[in-house]
């Protein structure tokens, strides 16, 4: 079919997802059909969508207008390179997640499988539509559809009150965010009443309104992404959701918010002011530091990952800020560098965070346990999951040669150029921001070691863990796919940048592809080889060869003998699993060093305690500083308002009477 454009194919993919979803609802209890046919089918569609956008990248923008929508604002769709990059992300990440999900969903857990199948695929389709939407209405429909379907997925286990609460918080903040986005669109139409994106592009906004639109978008999309201070839903919702859903939300959905921010700030607003970048950067830094610190002190493995997602979103916001700053000063080459870092990190995070969340899913299935304090030593029972999780952990810690490092490296490179900025304050502050980014990256390593070490290594903390089983074939396939993506993104940066550069070029007018291509596929040198270069493959191969050669040599020159024995107990007899660090113990240094950042409730044992125990509960300051006061305020206003309805008919009549009198006296045509 030669006349099917990529945008048509993507539309078909969205429809296919919807069809798959509705197919599930017709056999809601037929688990075999749903998990072994529908979910793999969904994964297949996802791969196709990813491939479609891969072939499209670099191509000319395509548009379509659908028959549905409002009478004078039908759904406009548009596939350009920016959308395509994110469709790529969506397709490839969700393929792995869908395959995993095929093996994950079981009978009798939460909602009926058919219902979940519907919600899951509607979620996918609406995310795709978000990326393709080219008018405010279609965007908002898709956006809220995404929020809604994911909300239902989050509350699958709705019998638990805390999960309901998490879902509520999630949908509420998503809704408030959506209001912000809608307002932002409204500002961008500049009163023209044209709510298609084309109409917004055509408007030249004065700086004040441009800034208003940007800030509203930052708030609105930030609420979805999990930027401070509207992040509170994220650590609640992610653990509540089934793992494939957490993976989808963290890996893909959060990126749609980044997509929206990019779309608004580089495409729709049309102007750019330097301090926007500073705002984004400051918010991003705060988010990143906050996220990573809280991630290190969590005792629930999914919460830990959720906070880690907040951190990554913060880094993305920093990259966005940097891009905006460079863009505002017309330093497009550097802006392109920062934006490449941004897009790359989106892809990388989609890969490794989905991978890690899926791993927690397997662990959860095998052990029924989310609390780090009751896990441990799972590498013995679940080698597949453990080794694949290691890839995610290394990438997530931002270490070479996997995907997380590439984006971090690009980001730091972009930071190094900030002294060229024609603004002395920025010159001073931006490098300090780079220092914070470095701190965040290092702390991420801490969090990841904690995660991996406590879940998979050490002794099993509970006897029941001996019964744990490894992931099934479908789950393994999904994990492998994502691990492979993580590896590919790690060692083939130039190739990947060759693809995503189309988006950068589209938004900024210039890209990195030419410089990158100059040096061959194995080497990443975004500006010039002299300035900075990175050859991940050499990296990987050297380490592997050094390890292997070392091993071979040692065996050849000496021997390979070994035996097993009990671990050395340092003279203590009690070296059971309880002697290991708990999750709380591991993060004790962090709590101590960064004490003011946490709101802690601690109980210390005293000498007189019959049964001494130590406990610590870490809470988010924002609850007490922002959300609870807000709730109290609303409540107070509400209490005031309800006095209107006091029950006395005489008073009611008086209202009516006074209204009439006031109107008669005051209102004049």
């Amino acid at each position: 079919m030669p006349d099917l454009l990529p945008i048509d194919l993507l539309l078909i993919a969205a429809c296919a997802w919807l069809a798959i979803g509705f197919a599930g609802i017709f056999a809601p209890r037929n688990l075999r059909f749903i998990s072994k046919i529908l979910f793999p089918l969904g994964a297949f569609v996802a791969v196709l969508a990813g491939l479609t956008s891969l072939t499209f990248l670099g191509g000319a923008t395509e548009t379509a207008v659908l028959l549905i929508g409002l009478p004078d604002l039908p759904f406009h769709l548009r596939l350009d390179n920016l959308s395509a990059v994110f469709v790529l992300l969506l397709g490839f990440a969700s393929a792995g997640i869908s395959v995993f999900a095929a093996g994950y969903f079981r009978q009798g857990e939460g909602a009926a499988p058919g219902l979940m199948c519907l919600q899951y695929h509607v979620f996918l389709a609406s995310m795709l539509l978000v990326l393709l939407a080219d008018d405010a209405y279609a965007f908002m429909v898709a956006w809220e559809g995404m929020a809604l379907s994911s909300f239902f997925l989050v509350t699958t286990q709705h019998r638990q009150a805390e999960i309901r609460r998490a879902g509520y918080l999630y949908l509420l903040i998503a809704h408030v965010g959506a209001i912000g986005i809608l307002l932002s669109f409204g500002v961008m139409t500049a009163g023209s009443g044209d709510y298609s994106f084309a109409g917004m592009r055509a408007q030249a906004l004065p700086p004040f309104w441009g800034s208003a639109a940007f800030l509203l978008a930052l708030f609105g999309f930030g609420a979805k992404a999990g930027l401070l201070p509207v992040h509170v839903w994220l650590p609640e919702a992610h653990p509540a959701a089934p793992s494939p859903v957490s993976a989808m939300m963290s890996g893909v959905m959060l990126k749609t918010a980044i997509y929206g921010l990019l779309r608004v700030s580089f495409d729709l607003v049309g102007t750019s002011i330097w301090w926007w970048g500073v705002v984004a950067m400051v918010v991003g830094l705060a988010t990143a530091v906050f996220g990573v610190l809280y991630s290190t002190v969590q005792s629930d493995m999914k919460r830990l990952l959720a906070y880690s997602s907040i951190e990554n979103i913060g880094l993305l916001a920093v990259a966005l800020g940097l891009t905006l700053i460079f863009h505002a000063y017309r330093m497009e080459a550097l802006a392109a560098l920062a934006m490449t870092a941004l897009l790359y990190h989106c892809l990388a995070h989609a890969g490794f965070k989905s991978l890690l969340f899926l791993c927690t899913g397997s662990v959860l299935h095998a052990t029924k346990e989310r609390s780090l304090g009751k896990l441990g030593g799972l590498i013995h029972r679940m080698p597949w999951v453990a080794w694949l999780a290691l890839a995610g952990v290394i990438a997530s810690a931002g270490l070479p040669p996997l995907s997380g490092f590439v984006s971090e490296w690009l980001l730091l490179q972009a930071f190094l150029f900030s002294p060229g900025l024609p603004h002395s304050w920025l010159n001073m502050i931006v490098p300090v921001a780079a220092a914070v980014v470095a701190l965040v990256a290092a702390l991420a390593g801490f969090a990841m070691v904690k995660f991996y070490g406590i879940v998979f290594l050490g002794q099993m903390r509970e006897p029941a863990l001996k019964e744990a089983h490894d992931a099934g074939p479908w789950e393994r396939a999904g994990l492998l796919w994502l691990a492979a993506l993580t590896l590919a993104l790690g060692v083939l940066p130039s190739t990947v940048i060759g693809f995503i550069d189309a988006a950068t070029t589209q938004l900024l007018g210039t890209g990195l592809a030419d410089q990158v291509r100059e040096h061959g596929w194995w080497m990443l040198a975004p500006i010039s080889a002299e300035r900075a270069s990175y050859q991940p493959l050499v990296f990987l191969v050297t380490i592997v060869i050094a390890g292997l050669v070392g091993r071979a040599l040692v065996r050849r020159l000496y021997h390979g003998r070994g035996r097993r024995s009990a671990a050395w107990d340092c003279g203590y007899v009690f070296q059971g699993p309880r002697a290991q660090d708990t999750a709380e113990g591991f993060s004790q240094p962090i709590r101590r060093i960064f004490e003011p950042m946490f709101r802690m409730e601690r109980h210390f044992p005293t000498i007189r305690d019959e049964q001494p125990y130590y406990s610590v509960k870490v809470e988010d300051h924002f609850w007490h500083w922002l959300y609870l006061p807000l709730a109290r305020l609303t409540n107070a206003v509400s209490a005031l308002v309800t006095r209107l309805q006091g029950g006395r008919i005489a008073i009611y009549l008086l209202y009516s009477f006074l209204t009439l009198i006031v109107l008669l006296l005051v209102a004049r045509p």
Partner: protein
Amino acid sequence: MSLSAQLINLFAAVILLLAFAMLAQRRVLTLINLFALQGLTLALSTLVVAFTTGQAHLYGSAALTLVLKAVLLPWILHRLVRRLEVKWDVEPLIKVPTTMLVGIVLVIISFNVALPISQLSSTISRGTLGIALASVMLAFLMMITRSKAIPQVVGFLAMENGLFLAATSATYGMPMVVELGIALDVLVGVIILGVFFFQIRDQFDSLDIRHLERLKEK
């Protein structure tokens, strides 16, 4: 000013006076009688207008008012009072002198509001529009200040009287079909209210509407 115009103004003044009297009255039976008197005055006033202007349908209107407001409704109310054995409106929610003061303010407001309109009117009875509005407002005030169900209903009906007065004074009455419809509504309304009184008394052992304050926001 012609005699009929003077007569109409007189009747209007009587209606206003009766409205004040009702506002001050605490005995339920007297209240109903005052209401009947107001209906009668209204019917007479309409009759004068009809006679003066020769509008045929105003005779009908006057007859309707007479039957309904001066006879039928008071009769129903009397029966109700007897059956329900209520004689006193225990005490108004606001003290009577205060109510009267507020009433005077209301009259001033009504006159001022109605002034620009009555200047536009060409009817013989245009000056009474302000009085009509004032009696609507006074009836309203009465409803607000009464704590028993029956006085409240009387207030409601007195309001209708004011509205009828307004209709005749400004426009020589509404089209007949509308007037009939209004009359039907009022009649049915009073019957339903009558049924209500019994139900309320059954449920609450009283017609004091202060019992009816349970539905509220806490």
